[in-house]
């Protein structure tokens, strides 16, 4: 509810004679334009020319990483789906066909159009299975094509793994508990 005392009425200031002519403003604008005519060109003729990414951790198209055996590394824990502020990740989990893992994603869809590329999914992933790649030229002919499924996301991995290798997570676990790394816990010398 807006109260009357909250409303401030602002009068439009009256223009002087010079301002009403608009000429000083036009000249000022043209000055800026001409100044730039003699400066170094900063535009790039995309897509013929491509600019180098200024940051290493550019947040582009997602990929689903593969583990050492070439299987999807995701364990379908839904953490990325939970963390996603744009609700663009849809996972269907299932019992995994492999003995060393409990759960895997039967279906893993990311709506790249809905995504805001915030990277929260990457942060949330406990096994670093989902990562954002430096790939930014995301084009398609339909909205449907922009919904990336598991296969497509694994393809992105195959395409970009040389440019950006998987982080290889150090999972905080202990030897002998399922599919954990063989690292010894800190401070364990025997």
């Amino acid at each position: 509810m807006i109260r009357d005392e909250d409303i401030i009425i602002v009068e439009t200031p009256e223009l002087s004679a010079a301002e009403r002519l608009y000429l000083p403003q036009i000249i000022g604008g043209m000055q800026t334009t001409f100044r730039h005519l003699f400066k170094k060109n900063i535009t790039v003729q995309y897509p013929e020319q491509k600019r180098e990414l200024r940051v290493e951790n550019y947040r582009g198209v997602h990929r689903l990483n593969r583990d050492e055996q070439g299987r999807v590394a995701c364990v379908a824990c839904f953490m990325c789906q939970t963390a996603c502020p744009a609700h663009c990740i849809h996972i269907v989990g299932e019992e995994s066909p492999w003995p060393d893992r409990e759960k895997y994603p039967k279906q893993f869809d990311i709506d790249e159009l809905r995504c805001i590329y915030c990277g929260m999914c990457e942060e949330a992933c406990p096994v670093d299975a989902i990562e954002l790649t430096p790939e930014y030229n995301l084009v398609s002919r339909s909205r449907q094509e922009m919904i990336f499924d598991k296969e497509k996301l694994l393809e992105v991995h195959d395409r970009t793994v040389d440019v950006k290798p998987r982080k290889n997570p150090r999972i905080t676990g202990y030897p002998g508990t399922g599919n954990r790394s063989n690292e010894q816990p800190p401070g364990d010398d025997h």
Partner: protein
Amino acid sequence: MAKITIDHRVIECSDGIPVLQAALDAGWDIPHYCYHPGLTVVASCRLCLMEMQLPHPKTGEMGWVPKLLPSCQTPVRDGMVVRFDSDLVRDNQKSCMEYFLIDHPLDCPVCDQAGECHLQDYSYKFGSAASRMADQKHTNPKKDIGPKTLLYSDRCVLCTRCVRFTEEVSGTHELCSVNRGSRQEIDVFPGMPLDNPIQGNVVDVCPVGSLLDKDFLFKQRVWFLDGTPSICPGCSAGCAIRVDQNEDVVYRLKPRFNPGVNDWWMCDEGRFGYKYVHDAKRIAAPVLRRGADATTPDWEAIPEIVSYRFAQHVAKHGDDKIAVVLSPMMACEEAWLLVKFIRGVAPSATIATGFVPTSGEAQHFPVGCKPDEAKFTILPEKCPNRRGVELITERAGGNTCDFDAFVKQAVGGAYSGAWIVGGYPDEWVPKDLTKATKHLKLLVMQDMFENTLTEAAAIVLPACAWVERDGSFMNHTGKIQPFERAVRVPQGARRDGQYLFEIAGHGGLYSGERVREMMAEEMSEFSEVGDAPPKPVHQH
């Protein structure tokens, strides 16, 4: 009533209940695993230990006992002084949590219990952040202990709630605890899987992710689910349940505490019996037939079409040749609205109670107990509201009959117009009734699935599943229990209550509560239907 002092605060509670229960009821969050109000006390988890004042054996002076006592096993006595906010108690809780987590696989990301797990909650609240366990963890692969349940021994805290459940409530003794010490685990006997009609409750009583439903396994993470209080429509017992849904898909049903009806439990038949809700074959739109051509009218036009058809029929054939069959799957409110409409257009119409599906005999648990000593009962009447529609039929007065009499009269050609309500998850139409359709010039069918009657009907109205409606069911003891809408109706359909509300001549939105207020004016039974279901004694 007794007055006891917990942490310097005096509370009143009933005499003889465990101190733990009194503290939980008064709002304390005392960690506990083995204690469950529906099971016997074993005091084995040692998490709920407290300090207590007792007279000194020599001087008789009141003082704190140097050892900790289990609050779940200590009954309340008047004047008792106990405390939980001491270092001794907190140290004990911390050490206990460390022991529980010694072999824990920390697989929370793939564990279905994560989010409603008391290992997580208590570890966060009462435990420590890091584990000091340096040796290899003792691992134990998951076990298939029954057709519907999995056991992950790794995650087990050995509270033996599940064992006590099969001993004390189901009386089937399938589960036991084998081995001792660090090798102790829950197991079934060889060749005797966990398979009894109420075995699903072991998953509910399990405070951790050790026992899991195969049906729900990996389907959803629990934090995506929204729970709605409801009543199970599987039998006439009227168990209070919670419908867990996400984006209008029901993923599981869980029992709600309902003293005197189902207490903490529910049966597997009810628990897994909701699958028909998402059946693609359900009728999802009204159908209007004129001769051979069928059309789907707008919902806005339905009240007018129905009233016009009935009015026309009454004018032609008289009002005593109309019958209404009230299904026991209907809520009381819906049945009442339908009766109001029919009696409005045809005052001497016959009101009949619908088909009551039955199967087998009442099953009492623990197995082999006397019916009056049963802790849980599955009733043979597989519909939720027979008593309710009977009550409404009786109060309607005038011409009433039961289902068998209706079928007999209908076959004999006593009726030329009928409104038959189905809404059963299974096939239900008796053969005789199909034959009677040739006498029915105006047949309105309200049903969930296609059958011989919906094929013959002039107007077909989709009946919705109970999770899509709201209203109240009267159980076999005459207790009226309200239930709420959990999910939206399928596209194209409308809630039964809503269109019946409009057909009965009311405007606006239907709500069970609103109709109950109208009903209470003529039926005092409905004036005191509590909308808030009883609160659970404690959450797990």
